[in-house]
Structure formats: C-alpha cells, structure tokens
C-alpha cells in the first residue's frame, strides 16, 4: 500500500527555474525522507526531516514538513538538466519506508 501521494505527478520546467514537489501522507510519522531516482535505477537519498523539524536545507534543496497538515514539500532551486529524475517521498514507520508514486521532473536546457 502507498501512504504518500506526490503532487504533481509530472513537472516540466526550464533550466534555472525552481521546482516544487509536494507530498501528503496519512498516518503519524517518525521522519520523512526524499529520494531521487534516475531512469529506473537505484534510489539516491536526498534529505531526511524528523517529525519535530519544520524545515531543512541541503545545497539547492529545501524541505519543509507540516505534521498538522500531514504534508511535506521539496524545493529545488536553480534547477539544472541533471536534476531530471523521479522524486519520491517516503515516510518512516518504525524502519519501514512507505513510498508515494513519485513526481517525474523534467528540466529542459
């Protein structure tokens, strides 16, 4: 079963623009993690935000978490063609990750 739902399902932007992806979930969480996947290959961990944190930054990435609304967002600033990938949020349920269906991001040069 999928817990998270990403929105939008697909996003197409120009290089240099910002990309925002949203994730909603249903149950209480320990933490929420964002991953990137290129062309059906392995998942690359981007950022982990704990349930008591509201915002976290890593390079060009900014993640927010609103536990009252059971939602999170991932912002990629100044996007590059190399950011083209699928992005997944995953909630941590006692060490078991529950993934959404992902957002497919396309960054055009």
């Amino acid at each position: 079963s999928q817990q998270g739902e990403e929105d939008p399902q697909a996003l197409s932007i120009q290089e240099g623009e910002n990309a925002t992806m949203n994730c909603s979930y249903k149950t209480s969480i320990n933490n929420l993690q964002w991953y990137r996947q290129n062309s059906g290959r392995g998942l690359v961990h981007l950022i982990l935000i704990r349930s008591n944190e509201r915002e976290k930054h890593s390079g060009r990435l900014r993640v927010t978490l609103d536990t009252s609304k059971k939602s999170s967002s991932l912002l990629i600033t100044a996007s590059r063609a190399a950011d083209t990938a699928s992005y997944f949020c995953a909630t941590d349920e006692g060490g078991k990750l529950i993934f959404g269906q992902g957002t497919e991001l396309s960054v055009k040069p």
Partner: protein
Amino acid sequence: DAGVTQSPTHLIKTRGQQVTLRCSPKSGHDTVSWYQQALGQGPQFIFQYYEEEERQRGNFPDRFSGHQFPNYSSELNVNALLLGDSALYLCASSRLAGFQETQYFGPGTRLLVL
C-alpha cells in the same frame, strides 16, 4: 567506502522458476531491507532483516523469503515466479533496524519473468 551492492543487475526467468537475489550492505550497516518497484510505481516494502532475523514484513506472499548472513549480507528468494513478479528489486541498508536512520539503496536487480 563501498556503498550498497546488488547482484545480478539483470535477470530473465520463466514462470514457475525460482530466483535468488543478493545484497551487500554499506560498511558499518547491520540492517537490510528489500523493496519491489513495479514500472511507474513507487517502491513497496517486502521485508527487513536485522540480527539475522526477519524483523518486519510487508504485504507479500510466502513465496518471497529471505535470509541474512553473519556478515550482514542478505538474499531475497522468490519461488514459483509469476509474470507479475517482474520488477526492479531494491535493497537498502541502514543501522539499528533503520529506525530514524537514513536507508541507502543499491542499484537494484531488474527481474523479467516470461
């Protein structure tokens, strides 16, 4: 420092056959979790091994079984393969049963069942 490794990278089997996939965790990690990712979907949790025991299991039939060895590496076995078992199988490693820990994924094994 080697990351998570998986073998083989690709595999083709026919219905009814059995398959074994292998995973070596990242150095310093003691927990291995397995996920199945169908085309166009997010990964789904199969099970997790910690201290050589299955600690958690997702909604997968008994045809899916696993093992963890003393060196923390792990195997995923699938018996009586069905066409619907065709997917990318991902292994993830972490510390301490993955609780509040980042899970690091391997490159995956792509299984095609004909």
